[in-house]
């Protein structure tokens, strides 16, 4: 009863309400030890991050659902975040976890990031049912928990994609097995996600309703004292994106397709031409809901500690199985070296499109119908623009330093140089137009803490 009430409040209430609820439990919680000693425990994390963007045309984003990008000048929108977590050990093997998160880039609107019941079935097996953090890539569950992450932000070229999928509403199963000193964990997960995908090139910025259905995956990780390796593969049954503008586009495509079929039905038309028009109509009809896809996500990543050295790397493959959104290969490599409380680091990341741009050649004028042809030209323009804005290829080079200045507190200073392959490829920038000045320099100062 109490659990349901808490989840409801996080989903619908304000952060203030959340805080007041948590303050009651804070009196019960005492320290950071595990639940059996503290049946109800409050904890939290926050990042106060300020980023300077030198580019007047390109906003920096954490994910494509971000309401307010970090535009030119100083902004807190890229990294600033606050999170509160309540852990409640109901029974020795049963616990309830709720985590609310508020991001500056989302006007600090509270969102439920985790809300699940965890049941431990044996020493090696546990199940979580409810809302869990996204397991798509190596660091996708930790990307917004600054203190737990080496850098000020996860590499933007690779991580904006998984950052869109902040959670799964479903369940996961975790099975652990130890061989020697290596701990293996097999995680199977299933769920759905929905979010607002923002099309920054429309004015006003269009909020589309995006939905990922039947997200199912498996991840296997192997952890030794100094190295963790994780391989994951995730499939989906459907990704859909809906908005009034997309409906308008669909209506236009449907009308043109119907017009071509009507022309093809003209008995005076040569058979070859009629057949060609029918094929064209079919192809144009296939452009309906062009953002819809069936993405798969694959990731192979590692995190290694060798004395003072820290090495993180990952290879990723995103295949949307859709002509517009395409297929991408990405990687990042980061190296840090700790000198007392300071860890300077460098990082390089890249994501590149591996499939051709969408072919819109079926939207060719017929020279048969003067009323239909202008509509075809207009639709081709709209689809070509969508295809151009869909290319998320980009790279980043970053240098920074992390200073663990106090217990539970770290200060990071980071410089990122982000760029796309050319000025007509938008990458993961919030843009209103193309071409644009495709190099963005970000300077970030971020204070992370946990409690």
């Amino acid at each position, binding site marked *: 009863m109490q659990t349901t009430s808490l989840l409801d409040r996080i989903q619908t209430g304000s952060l203030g309400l959340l805080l007041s609820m948590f303050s009651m439990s804070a009196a019960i919680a005492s*320290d*950071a*030890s*595990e*639940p*059996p*000693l503290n049946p109800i425990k409050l*904890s939290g*994390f926050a990042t106060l991050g300020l980023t300077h963007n030198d580019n007047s045309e390109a906003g920096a984003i954490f994910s494509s659902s971000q309401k307010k990008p970090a535009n030119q000048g100083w902004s807190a929108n890229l990294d600033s975040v606050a*999170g509160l*977590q309540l*852990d409640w050990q109901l029974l020795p093997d049963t616990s309830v*976890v709720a*985590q609310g998160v508020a991001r500056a880039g989302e006007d600090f609107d509270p969102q439920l990031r*985790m809300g*699940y019941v*965890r049941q431990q079935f044996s*020493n*090696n097996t546990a199940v*979580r049912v409810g809302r*869990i*953090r996204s397991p798509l890539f190596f660091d996708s*569950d*930790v990307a917004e*928990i600054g*203190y*737990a*992450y*080496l850098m000020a932000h996860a590499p933007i070229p690779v991580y904006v994609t998984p950052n869109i999928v902040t959670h799964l509403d479903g369940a996961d199963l975790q099975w*652990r097995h*130890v061989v020697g*000193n290596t*701990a293996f964990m097999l995680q199977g997960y299933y769920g759905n996600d929905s979010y607002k995908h923002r099309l920054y090139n429309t004015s006003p910025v269009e909020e589309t309703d995006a939905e990922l259905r039947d997200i199912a995956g498996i991840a296997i990780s192997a*952890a*030794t*004292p*100094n190295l963790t390796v994780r391989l994951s593969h995730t499939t989906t049954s459907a990704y859909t994106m809906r908005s009034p503008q997309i409906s308008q586009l669909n209506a236009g495509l449907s009308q043109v397709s119907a017009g071509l079929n009507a022309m093809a039905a003209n008995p005076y038309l040569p058979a070859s031409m009629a057949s060609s028009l029918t094929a064209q109509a079919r192809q144009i009809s296939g452009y309906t809901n062009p953002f819809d896809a069936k993405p798969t996500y694959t990731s192979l990543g590692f995190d290694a*500690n060798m*004395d003072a050295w820290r090495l993180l790397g990952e290879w990723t493959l995103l295949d949307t199985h859709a002509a517009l959104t395409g297929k991408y290969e990405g990687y990042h490599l980061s190296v840090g070296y*700790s000198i007392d*409380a300071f860890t300077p680091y460098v990082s390089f990341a890249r994501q590149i499109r591996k499939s051709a741009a969408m072919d819109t050649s079926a939207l060719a004028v017929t020279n048969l119908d003067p009323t239909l042809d202008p509509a075809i030209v207009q639709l081709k323009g709209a689809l070509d623009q969508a295809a151009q804005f869909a290319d998320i290829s980009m790279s980043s080079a970053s240098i920074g330093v992390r200073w*663990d200045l106090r*217990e*539970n507190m*770290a200060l990071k200073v980071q410089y990122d140089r982000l760029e796309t392959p050319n000025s007509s490829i938008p990458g993961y920038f919030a843009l209103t137009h193309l071409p644009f000045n495709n190099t963005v320099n970000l300077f970030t100062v971020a204070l992370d803490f*946990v409690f």
Partner: protein
Amino acid sequence: MKFSYFVLLGAVFVTSVQAQGQVVVIANRQAPVDKIEPDQASQIFLKQIQTWPNGRSIEPIDIKEGSPLRAEFYSKITGRSLGQLRSYWARQAFTGMGFPPKQAATSEDVAKLVQLTPGAIGYVSKQQADGSVKILLDSGGK
């Protein structure tokens, strides 16, 4: 007077050095092993290894933040700084993957809890490890 003051200071220094060199990993006497390697100790306190070879749960007992023994244990045995350790547990806790070990206020409390809890493992300074617990790893021998 001055002489005895310096002797006292020297004694404190020597004790501190000795204590820092002699953290030992202890376990409840029922633990099914007599010795573990530093890597195993590291995996146990990071909760990557959660069961003894006989299948029984391992109950690691940590010392509260701020204890020099804690810093020494993690630096010597696991090779991690306390900052790295906190970062590791922040990741585990806020992604729903686990919690840090139970904590005791002092190393005396650790010894007591380990003695009383089947499956428990902890670390104390060597002087506090009496016959009521098993010594599984001696950092002095590392």
